[in-house]
């Protein structure tokens, strides 16, 4: 039985009245939902709040889930929409690159690798929320292009074009950032 079938079984039991089983669905998808929200909002607290709200919304609308798509596809669409609403409420402030130093992967071994990640995270912050979500879903490798298209509410070709443009832009931003950093030394 694959993951989608397990999710559907749990959903059927929750709709039959066993609400406590919803905690299983939350446990299975919370980290992924949190990661999508985090990559859009760049704040752990905000991302957790968004993921929390998304799970509540998903529960309230569970009877409308039609089983034709995966539960995760449907849920991550809710997460994305909730994150967008939350992002609109946050005032846009100019952030320094140094903020993104803390977002560097803890596994990064050398200083150069940490710096690269810091700069890439800063460059990522310049992308639109949709581009960030598409990149997150693509690189976490749990969804195919057509599933990503469904989550993002666009067709496959558009997803591929967005992926290409986002990566091109990141490469360009990274180059510019490294040039500025070199000049400031």
């Amino acid at each position, binding site marked *: 039985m694959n993951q989608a079938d397990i999710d559907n079984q749990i959903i059927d039991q929750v709709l039959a*009245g066993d*609400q*406590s089983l*919803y*905690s299983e669905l*939350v*446990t299975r998808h*919370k*980290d*992924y939902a*949190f*990661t999508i929200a*985090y990559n859009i909002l760049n704040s752990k607290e905000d*991302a*957790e709040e968004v*993921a*929390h709200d998304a*799970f*509540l919304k998903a*529960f*309230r609308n569970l009877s409308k889930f039609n089983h034709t798509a995966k539960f995760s596809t449907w849920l991550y669409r809710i997460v994305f929409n909730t994150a967008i609403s939350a992002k609109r409420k946050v005032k846009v402030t100019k952030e320094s690159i140094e903020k993104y130093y803390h977002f560097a*992967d803890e*596994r990064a071994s050398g200083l150069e690798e940490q710096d*690269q*990640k810091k700069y*890439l995270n800063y460059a990522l912050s310049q992308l639109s929320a949709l581009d960030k979500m598409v*990149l*997150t879903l693509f*690189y*976490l490798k749990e969804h195919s292009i057509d599933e990503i298209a469904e989550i993002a509410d666009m067709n496959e070709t558009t997803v591929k074009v967005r*992926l*290409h443009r986002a*990566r*091109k832009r*990141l*490469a360009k931003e*990274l*180059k510019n950032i490294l040039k500025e950093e070199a000049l400031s030394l």
Partner: protein
Amino acid sequence: MKAKEITDEQLLDYLDGNINQPDRELLTKIIEEHPEVKARLRDLEQVDSILSEMTVKQTSAQFVTSVMDDLKNKPYSIKKGGFLIVLVAIFTVLLGAYFTVSDMIDLSIIKQEDYYSQLWQYIPNTINLKTLNTVLLGALSLFSLLIFDKTVLKPFFQKRKYHY
């Protein structure tokens, strides 16, 4: 295919393994022979390599408990806007019923136009304003009941059904 014609999209397809074998061999040859194309590929590879290390982040330890607690305490939110719409509708219905008049609207002026004569043979010469008023108020009452059901009654009964 010339080096100048190679787009970043082609290089990304090359990176992702989304091109056929003959094109792949041709691109590999161009990349090896043209340092500027190689440099562009390297920039894209760098981004791809770092993004590939993206990992799933963890929520806090009490996340699941927090969600389930909220579901237990407030599983369904009754929309306050629904109450407001119903109140406005009831107010409108009451005012409309109180101030309704018994005048008639005379349609004979319009009916004199020859162009519309075939259409208007099915329409009476006058319309009672009170009847029109009653129909509109009835429609408004039905609409407000539907809104009340969707925003207040349904969440209330679903909350009772799932209470544990």
